[in-house]
């Protein structure tokens, strides 16, 4: 293969890496939107908190002298999922549930307020500076001619692929096979009817927030390790990107969120290959506008029928 196509392949791999984490965050947006039709603006902050918890646990365990990396990562994952889910649940309980059924703008404003609150809470608790973690997973696997251009896939990237794949599979099985998953699907079809049929919709909505937060925590762990840096402001832009991904794929549709995330990640990486890296966000949002113009309901979304 020529040097150029190898370079493109490398960018494709990088793009898919980032894209799969966007997809994880996007699922949280899309599930909440699918059920109660609101943009959970604070979702990006949950991802940020997940990243922080990961860093705290890893630094703490390393400080205690633990050496086995897999065990450290598993503990970090479990703790991050637990804490982030608690945050997700609390945010729903405190800021959204009392407002359910009011004008569409009201919960959105509350969500923006919650996002600002959480971001500044972390600023106050942990400081606003970047916190860096030395790379934990090093090395990788590469092919191609070393003298010409070498395509490399780091073990970290492989871990991101694997973790995303496993998480998605578990989620798909949960949604399609379990009783609770069926209740989730029923809620997104018709919330009122589901309630009439004797399902505690409040519980299902809370569950949706917990699942979304858990996925965001997984993304927080993966991206935190991948970049090696967190600060309290990463949540906003990541949330924005993930929401773009969810809209791109058709909001309310879980496969759509995954597709949108991957597409967005690849587009960004390809843009970064040809233009200065600062413009990749510009291209990402322009892509969103273009897709919405052609397919207003997103790539895999169901076109909405307006009824009187």
């Amino acid at each position: 293969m020529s040097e150029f196509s190898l370079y493109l392949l490398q960018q494709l791999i990088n793009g898919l890496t980032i894209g799969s984490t966007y997809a994880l965050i996007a699922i949280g947006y899309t599930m909440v939107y699918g059920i109660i039709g609101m943009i959970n603006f604070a979702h990006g902050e949950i991802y940020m908190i997940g990243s922080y918890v990961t860093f705290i646990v890893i630094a703490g365990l390393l400080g205690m002298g633990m050496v086995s990396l897999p065990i450290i990562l598993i503990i970090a994952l479990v703790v991050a999922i637990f804490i982030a889910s608690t945050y997700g649940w609390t945010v729903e309980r405190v800021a959204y549930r009392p407002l359910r059924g009011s004008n569409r703008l009201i919960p959105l404003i509350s969500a923006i307020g919650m996002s600002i609150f959480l971001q500044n809470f972390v600023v106050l608790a942990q400081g606003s500076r970047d916190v860096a973690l030395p790379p934990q997973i090093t090395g990788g696997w590469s092919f191609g001619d070393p003298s010409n251009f070498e395509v490399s896939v780091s073990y970290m990237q492989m871990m991101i692929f694997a973790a995303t794949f496993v998480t998605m599979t578990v989620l798909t099985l949960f949604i399609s096979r379990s009783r609770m998953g069926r209740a989730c699907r029923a809620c997104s079809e018709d919330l009122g009817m589901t309630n009439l049929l004797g399902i505690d919709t409040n519980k299902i909505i809370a569950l949706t927030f917990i699942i979304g937060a858990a996925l965001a925590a997984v993304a927080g762990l993966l991206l935190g390790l991948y970049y090696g840096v967190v600060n309290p402001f990463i949540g906003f832009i990541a949330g924005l990107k993930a929401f773009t991904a969810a809209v791109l794929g058709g909001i309310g549709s879980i496969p759509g969120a995954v597709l949108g995330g991957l597409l967005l990640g690849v587009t960004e990486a390809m843009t970064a290959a040809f233009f200065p890296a600062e413009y990749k966000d510009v291209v990402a949002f322009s892509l969103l506008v273009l897709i919405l113009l052609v397919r207003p309901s997103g790539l895999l979304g169901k076109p909405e029928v307006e009824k009187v």
Partner: protein
Amino acid sequence: MTQSKFYNAIFAAGITFILACLMIGVKLNTEGTTLTVEGATAAQWGWIIGGITVVFFSQLFSNQIDSAFGKLPKPAVSQLVPQSLKSEAMKPWLLAGVIVIMLIWPFMASRGAVDLATLTLIYIMLGLGLNIVVGLAGLLDLGFVAFYAVGAYTYALLSLYFGLSFWICLPLSAALAALFGFLLGFPVLRLRGDYLAIVTLGFGEIIRILLNNWTAVTGGPNGISGIAKPTLFGLEFTRKAKTEGAETFHAFFDISYSSSYKVIFLYLIAVVLVIFLIYLINRLIRMPIGRAWEALREDEIACRSLGLNRTAIKLSAFTIGASTAGFAGCFFAARQGFISPESFIFIESAIILAIVVLGGMGSQVGVILAAIVMTILPELAREFAEYRMLLFGLLMVVMMRWRPEGLLPMKRPQLELNKQ
């Protein structure tokens, strides 16, 4: 007190502990290249335990607290004004009185207070603009600050490169912001509400990124400094005239120089601009187009079946809102004398949106009131500056729970059928 109440309180306290224990109780610390953690100080643990106790008891006694709050009368802001002042005949006099007071008080107040009032007036302009888009037309715009930035940079760049004066740039800024609004609105206004919100949010980011990276023209993150101040018919408010042949204000009127003239002059310009905007918007609301905005917000399908052009109506609201932001942006650049992309981040959009929502969507008096509250409260709470944004976020959440219709909800003359 039932047993379930007790378990509920224990549960809530436990949740609070989980939320706080790692995020507050442990602090990340970078030492060289290694990352270490350190436990929180005893004072911080005191805060955590205090918070848990508060949550525990507020859950335990939630019924009593709720009933105590239920007994508190809801503040009806509109009833604070005496009934005698409400009659239609009094209105022009009241308005004239307010305007006269607004014009006179800066000569007696301190410089800082006048400066703060000018800032408040900028937020009033922005609030009024966004009120058209969100409050009247019901289009959720999360990237309003982009048009503000367009206005500010239009004036800054035109004055920097072409030496155009503030008064020429004011309409130009508004027009250019309107053009941006039109260009963005044309494709995206067909989208449903939430898509529109995210596209406008993305647009706001795009503008900020472009300003940050187009270093050759906009100066990038360093911004543009030394933007010319407005002049009064060519009279400058500096100690010595900057441009060749120009005269200064104090020399023309033969009074001694004082830097507070400039501050007062800027304030007066802002007052005039705000009055002009309020007049304009009041006219617009009463015109067919204004009624169409509200009708479209209430029921889009009904409007379409009545033959209203949905795109044209939405686009007009979006464009007029954008031009108002451009207006405010131009004045902002003139007042600051320095602008950088830092002034146009998302949080500004959120603040303006909060002003519109807190004031009561669609209500102009409410928006003005909310803008005053939102700019003056942070100044009063200077010692809590660290907690400013935290409290701001909390206020938004609490307001939505406590009074979602805003401080002064919009009122329309209406008749209601007797419900029986």
